[in-house]
């Protein structure tokens, strides 16, 4: 056990990486759970891609500033999310289709922005992040976002749960719209913070995988959220240790560990169902 902690004790950069991904795991757990229950898992992925053009614009205007890139990414992704909702309402198009269409447009603009920067933006770093390079600003941003997330959820919990578990209850009311916009903003904020730590693609892994794994073990919403936070934390620790011991890139290692937790949970749950049938 001491072997697991020794590198964290020796190296500040590992402790920072751990704190950054732990904050994200705790902050993303309730949102990931609600996304899955609302059947919006892939929408999370789409919004993560939509962060890219805004982050690139922030970089081009203000350089490698965490805050400029975060603000740009937030504006771009929220625009995509709201436009997608608007289009699906106005045209009777399925929301996932308008989301897919808009995030692809956003992604293309982002890649063109990267090209226009003449190589000053490294696309691989934006997409896959550098969890080992988290600086103070990145940590502050993650902590700020986590605080907003839990405060926002405390305020919105009841209407959000009703809207999630009893689809159609609020439909068409102003409450439904308000709750949807607030929830979407929280998801986007988390993706923006996650993008600073893990990169746009890997951040979705920490959002969805722990929540999907928790679904195989629990049914009550509170247990789902708690369990998915724990799984996310465990994946962050295990991923960093794996990266250190096996000499692997760190962000993907964390997501791989969360993915492993998901696969094991699915396996355990199918075995449980089969055993249940045998006994019954």
């Amino acid at each position, binding site marked *: 056990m001491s072997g697991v902690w020794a*590198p964290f004790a020796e190296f500040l950069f590992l402790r920072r990486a751990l704190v950054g991904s732990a904050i994200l795991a705790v902050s993303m757990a309730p949102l990931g759970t609600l996304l899955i229950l609302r059947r919006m898992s892939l929408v999370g992925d789409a919004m993560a891609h939509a962060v890219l053009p805004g982050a690139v614009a922030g970089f081009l205007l203000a350089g490698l500033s965490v805050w400029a890139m975060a603000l740009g990414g937030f504006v771009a992704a929220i625009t995509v999310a709201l436009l997608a909702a608007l289009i699906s309402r106005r045209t009777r198009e399925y929301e996932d289709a308008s989301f897919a269409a808009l995030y692809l447009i956003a992604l293309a603009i982002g890649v063109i922005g990267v090209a226009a920067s003449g190589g000053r933006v490294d696309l691989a770093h934006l997409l896959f992040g550098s969890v080992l390079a988290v600086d103070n600003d990145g940590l502050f941003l993650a902590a700020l976002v986590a605080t907003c997330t839990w405060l926002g959820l405390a305020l919105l919990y009841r209407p959000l749960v009703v809207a999630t578990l009893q689809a159609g209850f609020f439909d068409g009311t102003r409450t439904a719209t308000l709750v949807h916009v607030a929830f979407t903003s929280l998801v986007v904020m988390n993706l923006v913070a996650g993008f600073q730590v893990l990169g746009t693609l890997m951040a979705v892994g920490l959002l969805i995988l722990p929540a999907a794994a928790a679904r195989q073990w629990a049914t009550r919403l509170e247990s789902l959220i708690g369990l998915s936070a724990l799984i996310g934390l465990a994946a962050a620790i295990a991923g960093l240790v794996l990266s250190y011991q096996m000499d692997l890139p760190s962000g993907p290692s964390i997501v791989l560990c969360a993915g492993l937790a998901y696969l094991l949970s699915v396996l355990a749950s199918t075995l449980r169902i089969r055993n249940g049938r045998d006994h019954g």
Partner: protein
Amino acid sequence: MTSRRLILATLLATLAPPTPAAAAEPPLRVVASFSILADIARNVGGDRVVVTALVGPDADAHVYDPRPSDIATLARADVLLTNGLGFEGWMDRLVGSSGFRGRRVVAAAGIEPLPADGHDDPHAWQDPRIVERYVNRISAALAAIRPADAASFAVNAERYRRELRALDAEIRRAVDTLPPERRRFVTSHDAFGYFARRYGFTILAPQGWSTDDEASARDVAALIRQLKAGSVRAVFIENMTDPRLIERIAAEGGATVGGRLYSDALAQPGEPAGTYLGMMRHNLATLLAALRGP
């Protein structure tokens, strides 16, 4: 009609400069794969060539993505100048799709490459003496294609070789003032192998030779241990990879972040590191300032 054509012809004849027939040929169109090679080619070709770089200043040749205008430029070119040693892995496909039918010149052909991670280290231009051989190869190739300008290419090449030898002597004199135990540094991109061999430096890198590799936690940890052990005094940020990782490593390892070293791309034209000679002098000054220390 005829009279108008006659007037036009007369006008054109008076506009054309009164030079020997050979020089009336248009300058050779040379496409170089990246900015450093383009600068060397301009020095050799002078006003008898028009040089275009595919990967321009401050851009990364490892992850180059061709634009349609690049392919059009290449299709019209007389000469394609590449470094070789696997530096332009994307070039064969680009040549194939452009329909380029000119002459290919590989500047680093015939040099003995340094090994790097199981393949050849392509960054041979970091040694000015090797660049002299680039110059020989380029001027011979240009002269073979355009014999009429051969004399002019030879004069330019000789002048540039003298400048390269002066640069080499200048770097050696400056490095001699540095105690051997201080000739160690860390950079985010190990492109300085040839430079290190020529001038007796030891280089440590947190990443592999290509900028798209992501460092693992173990690589970073090993590097911080080295810095903490006190054997390395300075860390340099190279002009295109993520500087945040380097800053964290330097902060935790107690080294100084020594500024910017140029490796694969020149700075914008007009800046001190905007030419090959300027880039090498900029790198030397930056290195010395950080390694001399207090």
